[in-house]
């Protein structure tokens, strides 16, 4: 067992976990933060997306011990206009992927604001990349939605950045 500390949604949490416990399971099973969802548990769906020091990651492929002393934000700690936009634009149906979608979108907007390009960015030299629907779809492609609410998700994010 390893004794670690982690800042989760602003408060310091002490965790006593085996090294094989994922960050996802530590959040859900040890800290009771069940807003973060377990989808595929193999990094293929994005449902478990959280922010580590503001960067989006999939918590299922993260060992909790590896994130000791880091600053983790889960959907329970997110306050973003995107949340209302998702409701307004039907950015979900069943809701299972939604916490991951929103955490991912928050991280994605930070990356974009820092000038990070994507696979569909035409001019890699520019730091001012227009966040078109095509850019949003590419940058959000790590979050799958089995209900197919993609149009609503893109509309919600487009509204969120206005």
């Amino acid at each position, binding site marked *: 067992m*390893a004794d670690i500390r982690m800042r989760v949604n602003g408060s310091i949490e002490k965790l006593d976990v*085996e*090294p*094989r416990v*994922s960050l996802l399971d530590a959040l859900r099973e040890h800290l009771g933060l069940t807003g973060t969802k377990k989808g595929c*548990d*193999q*990094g293929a769906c*994005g449902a478990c*997306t959280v922010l580590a020091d503001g*960067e*989006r*990651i*999939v918590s299922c*492929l*993260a*060992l909790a*011990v*590896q994130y*000791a002393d880091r600053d983790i934000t889960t959907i329970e700690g997110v306050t973003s206009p995107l949340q209302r936009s998702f409701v307004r634009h039907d950015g979900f149906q069943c809701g299972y992927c939604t916490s991951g979608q929103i955490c*991912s979108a928050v*991280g*994605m907007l930070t*990356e974009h604001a*820092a*000038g*990070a*390009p*994507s*696979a569909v*960015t035409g001019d*890699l*030299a520019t730091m001012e990349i227009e966040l078109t629907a095509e850019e949003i*779809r*590419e*940058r*959000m*492609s*790590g*979050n799958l939605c089995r209900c197919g609410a993609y149009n609503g998700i893109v509309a919600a994010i487009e509204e969120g950045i206005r």
Partner: protein
Amino acid sequence: MKDFAYVSAPDVATAVRAITEPGAKFLGGGTNLVDLMRQNVERPDTVVDITRLPLDRVEELPDGRIRIGAMMRNSALAAHRLIRTRYPMLAQALLAGASGQLRNMATVGGNVLQRTRCPYFVDLAARCNKREPGSGCDAIGGFNRNAAIFGASESCVATHPSDMCVALAALDATIELESVRGVRRLPLVGFHALPGDAPQHETAIAADELITAIELPDLPVAARSRYRKVRDRASYAFALVSVAAALEVRDGVVTEARLALGGVASRPWRAHAAERALMGAPATEESFRRAADAELAGAVAQSQNAFKIELARRAVTATLRQLHLPGGAA
């Protein structure tokens, strides 16, 4: 997942000492290893976390070469100004891989060492010579739609899944390795092995070695380069075929060409035959097609993946056309 001991290495000296323990394995971003551990394909006794090593910078060396720390995240490397402007094919290859979340986690060193996505490799009920030497290969004659078309053997038809490495192969990158025995440098081209009769030997790295850096040569032609990836969906999927290409044309004649293919072999496939065919040839559609034909002449299909040969031919031609006629028809 089997239990294991966890060690976080603060510096390279500690890391390379820790890895000499039997059953020890380095852990980078975890995007491949943690997944394989959960499926019991990897069962390390000790995991040596190297993500805190101070190897996360891009440096421009005095002679113009670029040195990339092996713990640099894929997303950070793709976003780096020097990579975007001097080696666009590398930035594009990185951005074509995985998802935003995974690129934020995955390290450059780990990307080089990632394992095949052949479905039989992770299926413990299947035969796989890579996972269990001598057991056989269920991909041959089985589900092999995305198997290799170059360099496969009767033991293994798996591909290396990296996008980044395809660009690194075209760029003639160098890998720096460190162990308690010292430091050595190897060219990336040839670092990944062909399967032969021992597909479990995937790279030239020794069990006690750590990738500390990747170095890129100062290569003006790379500023006019691109990476094109063809896959089953528009994003977040492994390549069926990909192409990294750089082209220099003077007075309508090709004076320099660099070409590598991804998704087609157990290594990023440097297309030497296509490069030879291009050198000195007029920069025309006809020459591009001939160069693709020259490379694909050596391709061999499995039962389900003959389509990849034609797909690779078209992807090579289209990428060269795009490079030669920017803004032209893709």
